[in-house]
């Protein structure tokens, strides 16, 4: 019996299996893998492990899950924070276990991840792919649910004194949404800022290690309460009139996320307790 089978037997509950049975499945090959290296078995095990942290460690509260379409292409756009991509993991679990209609989450990850042994492969196996526009278009054309953090490392690597301040959004996600006619579901993430508060960034060390940042922070994520607020889907016309017009559309999404963050901060029961 392989390691995967053992893990699946030990961790994946019947309830989890039932949720997965409801997830719309895209084409996979004869060995259960898709072209990005994601596998259903790997996703089940990953979900089973992190769902425990989601429920009991970060005690995630969700609002507006009904705004995620049950099927069809959709871009889930969120603010990014917390040094590690925990916000991506939390949103993925919320999407995959959505009682209104679970979806297979496809999170776009930073470009350096594939070069990191074990981590890159693991992220691929659970459905994440590098944030390349070609990947994103292909997935949206397959009517998948794609999660994007337009702030990138500017958001995840920011210091604690800049918490809940949205950094510059790239325009790529808006071009992709307009090109593919995909609705955008904005998400405000609250709590991940407190999981790994960063006091400083050791830039010289980051340069030596080839990493985007090396934070001065706690050695492991703190048990902060996380609130995820999903907004109503936003649709934009397919025609790109000018880059300025795209920037205005990006600003609309950013404004919506800002409102959702504010709402989340008000709804949060406490930072840690």
């Amino acid at each position, binding site marked *: 019996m392989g390691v995967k089978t053992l893990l699946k037997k030990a961790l994946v509950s019947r309830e989890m299996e039932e949720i997965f049975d409801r997830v719309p499945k895209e084409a996979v090959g004869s060995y259960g893998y898709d072209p990005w290296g994601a596998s259903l078995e790997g996703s089940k095990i990953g979900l089973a492990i992190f769902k425990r942290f989601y429920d009991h460690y970060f005690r995630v509260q969700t609002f507006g899950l009904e705004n995620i379409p049950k099927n069809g292409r959709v871009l889930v756009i969120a603010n990014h924070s917390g040094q590690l991509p925990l916000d991506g993991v939390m949103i993925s679990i919320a999407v995959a276990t959505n009682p209104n209609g679970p979806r297979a989450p496809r999170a776009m990850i930073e470009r350096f991840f594939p070069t990191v042994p074990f*981590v890159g492969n693991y992220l691929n196996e659970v459905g994440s792919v590098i944030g390349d526009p070609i990947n994103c278009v292909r997935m949206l054309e397959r009517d998948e649910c794609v999660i994007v953090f337009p702030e990138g490392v500017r958001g995840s690597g920011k210091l604690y004194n800049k918490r809940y301040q949205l950094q510059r959004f790239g325009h790529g996600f808006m071009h992709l949404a307009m090109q593919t006619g995909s609705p955008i579901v904005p998400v405000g993430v609250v709590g991940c800022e407190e999981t790994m508060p960063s006091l400083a960034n050791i830039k010289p060390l980051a340069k030596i290690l080839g990493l985007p940042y090396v934070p001065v922070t706690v050695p492991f994520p703190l048990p902060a309460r996380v609130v995820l607020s999903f907004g109503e889907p936003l649709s934009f016309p397919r025609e790109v009139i000018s880059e300025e017009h795209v920037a205005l559309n990006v600003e609309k999404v950013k404004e919506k996320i800002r409102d959702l963050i504010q709402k989340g901060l008000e709804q949060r029961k406490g930072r840690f307790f």
Partner: protein
Amino acid sequence: MPAKKTGKKKSTVLVTGAAGVLAQQTIARLSLKHPIVAVDFRRAVEIGPNIPSYKVDFLKRGLEDVFRQHDISTVIHIGRIGTDIGGKFFRYNANVIGTQKLYDLCVKYHVNHVVVMSSYFVYGASPYNPALLDEDTPLKASDLTLNLIDTVELENLSQIYLYKHPQLNMQILRPTNIAGPGVRNNIGRLLSLRWAPVLMGFNPVMQFIHVLDLADAISLLLEKPKKAGIYNLAPNDWVPYKTVLSECNIHAVPFPSVPPGLTVSISRLLKWKAFPSYLVNYFKYPVIIDGGKFERTFGFKPARSLEEIFTHYRELKKEPWI
């Protein structure tokens, strides 16, 4: 200058690389309908009573005699020197300079259909590759390793002739890993082993095409209307490298993956033909290509499954060691 072909005679097909299993399977399919001439740089291969076969060095003048003696209208250029043979200079001369001579003769002798076998290696194994690379993706292989320059240059050369000489109706094929009985390329050698290296922390998804499917695809190009262009050839099926090894009864040997220079140095020291240093990244990062254009244009889908390919290599292990 030889006269243009009238089109009344049955078209003769010149197949290069005749000593290889792919060329032989292609010849077996085409010889029922077309006169065939076979050439190879290694040796004159015995193929059949009605099939003239020559040992030809593309860099020597003797190649033109083949065109003088036979009314060739189609060239299937499979005889590319594989990445596991010779040094980079030898491969460059044979694959690039030699192929240019062949193409010049195709122009001179009014050949009206050229099929050339390139490789998915041209895309390069970069960690930043998206999945499902299509034919318009930039070729990055020579950026990553000098040993694949001849592979990329052969492509560039073929593309020049594709656009400069449209009368050649050139079709450039970029197949994924070719495997199956008799295949002696890098991956064929590796899957025949009982032990194979695995870079620690990396398990890229891969694609494989059965050599018989590839021969079917090439023969189809002669049967269907000629549509010049570049085509990826790969099935819509994907499997991680470690699963491939386990399906082929191969023991995985952990190989250090960081720092990257160490992996390359060890591979270079071992001089392992199945796992050369310049192909290390193809066992580290996925290079998944999209075969959709070929499928749509020629209505072709590979008929043989991954399981069929792996079964062959499993069965191979049952044979006693000699």
